[in-house]
């Protein structure tokens, strides 16, 4: 049974159709990449799935349950967590406290939340920064903190929104390692919105490409890299030349 099933999802903002009849399925254990040009509707899709935006029409089924009408906190409690693209990290909370907020979704005990947070911090190599305030950390570490916080809710599915944006190559490697760890070791199913092509192509099992709110392609990374429609809409000829792909 699919973990997530999105059926003919439509989201309008006034006269603008941000998501136009998107359908896809996600199997448990998969790592799905979601790519497309700016304004293609990727983040909107996340917002609809995670209950931040009410959908205009369509259906979202998560883990066998229709979650289309649920709001964000209820979706989160069912095991669907997410990160935000732009998150001015808390000046008030330390790294550990941030992660504990996530952990508090599953327990009211401070001791248990603290212990769980420490496990996650160790998993993501953040232990050294545990008592620092998030705003004091470099951007890469801040992004990892948002991932750690989302993991605190012990999700089955994690939606990552551009966690590698604005990072240097070394930091991207670090983030990739974290994502792989979350996916392989912790067994969390992941959907990844990303513009850093190298990261998406190397980590994803499968890709979905959006353009102007529609799904224009779906397939394995290799297939997507050769898809003429995708190249035209998003990747561009340069990417294909540099990576030696052949235009079918």
């Amino acid at each position, binding site marked *: 049974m699919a973990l997530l099933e999105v059926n003919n999802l439509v989201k309008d903002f006034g006269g603008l159709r941000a998501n136009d009849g998107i359908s896809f399925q996600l199997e448990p254990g998969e790592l799905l990449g979601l790519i497309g040009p700016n304004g293609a509707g990727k983040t909107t899709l996340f917002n609809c799935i*995670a209950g931040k935006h009410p959908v205009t029409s369509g259906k979202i089924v998560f883990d066998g349950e229709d979650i289309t009408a649920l709001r964000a906190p209820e979706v989160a409690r069912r095991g669907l967590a*997410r990160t935000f693209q732009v998150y001015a990290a808390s000046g008030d909370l330390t790294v550990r406290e941030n992660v504990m907020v996530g952990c508090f*979704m599953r327990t*009211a005990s401070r001791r248990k939340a603290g212990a769980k947070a420490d496990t996650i911090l160790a998993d993501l190599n953040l232990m050294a920064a545990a008592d620092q305030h998030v705003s004091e950390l470099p951007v890469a570490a801040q992004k990892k903190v948002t991932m750690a916080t989302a993991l605190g809710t012990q999700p089955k599915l994690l939606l990552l929104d551009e966690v590698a944006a604005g990072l240097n190559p070394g930091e991207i490697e670090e983030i990739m390692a974290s994502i792989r760890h979350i996916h392989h070791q912790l067994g969390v199913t992941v959907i990844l919105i990303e513009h850093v092509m190298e990261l998406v192509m190397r980590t994803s099992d499968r890709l979905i490409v959006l353009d102007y709110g529609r799904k224009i392609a779906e397939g394995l990374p290799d297939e997507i890299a050769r898809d003429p429609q995708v190249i035209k809409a998003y990747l561009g000829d340069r990417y294909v030349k540099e990576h030696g792909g052949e235009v079918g």
Partner: protein
Amino acid sequence: MEALKNAFDFSDQPRLDLAIAGTIGMLLLIFPLLPLSAFALATMIQFFIFSLYGMGWNTIGGYGGQVDLGKAQYVGIGAYTTAVLLIRWDIPFWFSMPIGVVLAVTWSFIIGYPLFRLKGHYFAIATIATSLVLKDLFEVWDFVGAARGLEISPIKYAPPDFLRLIFKEDIYYYYVLFVFFLVGLLFLNWFRKSRLGYQLRAIKDNEDVARSLGINVHWAKIKTYAIATAYVSVVGSFHACYIKAIEPEDTMSLDISILIALMAMLGGAGSLWGPIIGAGILIPLKSYLKEWLGGVAGIAGMDLILYAVIIMVISAKEPRGVWGIVERIRRRKRT
């Protein structure tokens, strides 16, 4: 059990802070025994009263970042409940105080539900409005003495009456309040480390992120608002027994609401010691300023001007108050 342990657990505080807090605590304990004026003792009682108001405000206003300027209405509900029950039915403080809390918290749910649909300045303005409306209602409500207010006649009781909290000497009030103060501090210490406390701090940062972590933002705010209300209502009940004459103007006026918020903001909103520091600075200042300037005609409103200046300086220079300055210096030392 764990909650009780957490309330007494101050281990995350620097040793120096705990030493200072302990010393001050000891001084407060022996304060009434020192050869000081009755005025000094009365000022200290006001310090406790406003510390407790400030602690209550700090839960929703400091940790939650919801600037509440309507806390005086709950002072009024607490004070009036205790006064009315005592005068009409001779129900003593220790029974009327919890009844006051129940009434105040119920009222806080009723108005909190729509209020917390508002954000930022709109929320602040709406809290002022609800408080003023309640005050106006009390001013025309004969059952509670309308604008004349209510008077608890001490002659009817034989002080020291611990059940009704009717005393002749301030020293009794001082120690009762000191116990409230310690309980209030322990409760705040529990709160800031509780699930609700963490959730509230997350809400203050970013409500969308908080929602994505399974937090029911609206409900968390209402719950915390009720906690803040309980603090204020308890002290309001005490105020009635202490002052023995209450009227809408001196329990529910906007001045009091602003002063409550100011305590916490000056000391450091969203910190454990902030409200106490704020009250420790403002209350003596206010008392003695009034004492010194009271005789001089024409400058009786000086203290209000002073509050205005303090609010402006805090919001421009250090929104996290005195405690914010302390933390900044510490952080600079560490790096």
